[in-house]
């Protein structure tokens, strides 16, 4: 490089005129990609449309090209988010006492352990066991347990309402109801130990069920006759989808009370219980209006 050019180069750097970025190279126009635009195609089959009216399953949603429509995908993601949030939620400490329950806890010490160790969630912690022995009414007909299960959201929303409603329904039928208790980090089989300690005829646990798409607020009820450690799922009767869009809590309470009554009458539960002798209860066993899918996403 010539001396003059070296001097001017140095002067340019000294004046701060050196551009930190190279000059913009003009690009040739880029042709648009060969994109195909698909028009949304709603479901054509009348059978699918009819079926879709009777379920919250993803039926009759149509397609765009080979894919779902955007609103369907967004709805799916929103529903999945609701389920994830429900699993991640925890029952706050002191919730039981604030709502008039006797607060119990399983042997689980953390939420992560609760998810990973179902066996620990089925047994009472030592302190809680002492509490049950000291404070709970014994030799009752029905011991009702409200618990968080896999959806603390559901427990907090309708757990107390359902527990109270079941207790009222049982009392109406002339059954004695035990001390209301609420358990944290509870699995279904926790009712065996609590029922065994209170020597109740029937133990009934009302707990948040495993969240599905869009339903993080569903409660399930598991009912067992002569609860004791070692009872299996074959010894239990259960009722699921207790929420506003499924079986409403008040209606569920009537049916659960009838179920408990039937267990005491037949002295058994689970697969050996004859539901045909249950008689007519609220809501019946006939036609039920289909669930309606909640719209979580605006189009």
């Amino acid at each position, binding site marked *: 490089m010539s001396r003059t050019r070296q*001097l*001017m180069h140095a002067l*340019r750097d000294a*004046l701060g005129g050196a551009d930190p970025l190279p000059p913009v190279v003009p690009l040739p126009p880029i042709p648009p990609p060969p994109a195909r635009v698909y028009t949304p195609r709603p479901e054509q089959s009348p059978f699918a449309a009819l079926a879709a009216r009777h379920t919250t399953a993803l039926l009759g949603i149509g397609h765009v090209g080979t894919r779902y429509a955007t609103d369907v995908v967004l709805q799916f993601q929103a529903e999945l988010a609701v389920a994830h949030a429900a699993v991640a939620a925890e029952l706050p400490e002191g919730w039981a006492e604030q709502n008039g329950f006797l607060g119990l806890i399983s042997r689980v010490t953390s939420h992560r352990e609760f998810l990973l160790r179902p066996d620990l969630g089925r047994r009472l912690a030592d302190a809680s066991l002492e509490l049950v022995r000291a404070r709970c009414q014994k030799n009752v007909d029905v011991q009702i347990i409200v618990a968080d299960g896999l959806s603390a959201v559901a427990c907090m929303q309708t757990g107390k309402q359902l527990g109270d409603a079941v207790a009222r329904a049982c009392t109406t039928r002339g059954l004695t109801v035990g001390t209301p208790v609420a358990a944290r980090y509870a699995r279904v089989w926790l009712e065996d130990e609590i029922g065994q300690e209170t020597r109740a005829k029937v133990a009934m646990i009302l707990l948040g069920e495993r969240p599905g798409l869009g339903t993080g607020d569903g409660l399930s009820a598991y009912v067992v006759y002569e609860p004791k450690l070692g009872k299996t799922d074959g010894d239990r009767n259960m009722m699921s989808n207790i929420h506003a869009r499924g079986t409403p809590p008040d209606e569920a309470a009537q049916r659960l009370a009838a179920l408990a009554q039937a267990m005491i009458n037949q002295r058994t539960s689970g697969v050996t219980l004859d539901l045909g002798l249950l008689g007519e209860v609220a809501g019946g066993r006939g036609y039920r209006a289909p669930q309606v899918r909640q719209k979580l996403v605006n189009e």
Partner: protein
Amino acid sequence: MILEPIVPTVLSVRRLPNADPALITAYGGDPTKHTALGLVTCDQDDAMYVALDEATKHAPVDVVFAKSFYAGAAHASGRLSGEILGVLAASEPESIEHGLAALLRCLAHDACFYDADGKGTVTVFPHMIASLGEYLSREAGLVAGAPMAYLVAPPLEATIGLDAALKAADVRAVRVTPPPTETNFACAWLTGTLDACEAAAVAYAAAVVDVAATPKR
């Protein structure tokens, strides 16, 4: 970007291996000494003066004719006219070839104007000649081999720049050509030690850049 080189464009290069004596006389040569001519037009007159001088350092050639045209390159009278016609003369065509080679190399790689405002609307020629050749040393009245700063800029920029250059180093003004010239630029030739000339050239360029950035202050 400021101070980017604006490389001169060589518009025409022609040889006359055996020029007519009348022509040689008319263009300032000596027919008893010169037979061959080399003619070049270019769009930067001051770069051409430096390049002609460069040619005299590399070959036994004389610069017999070098004159700027009026108005400058942006307003040239013809597509090949440019801003200057330079004529080299020698006793044989071989010398013209060597001289033209050095001249064109200098135009391509050394002597050039620089962009003083990043937009090419103000330009500056702060050229540093480390060692003068026969042609410019004769024009400047200096000995061949002396260093010289060859400084050109538009009128006001050149005035401010010359003041800065003279104060920046221990240099002496050999020739100052105030505007208007043929191209309406102003020119100054400074000499001193090599380092002093370099410092003067840099100060000159910096002053022109400053004026271009803030013309009213």
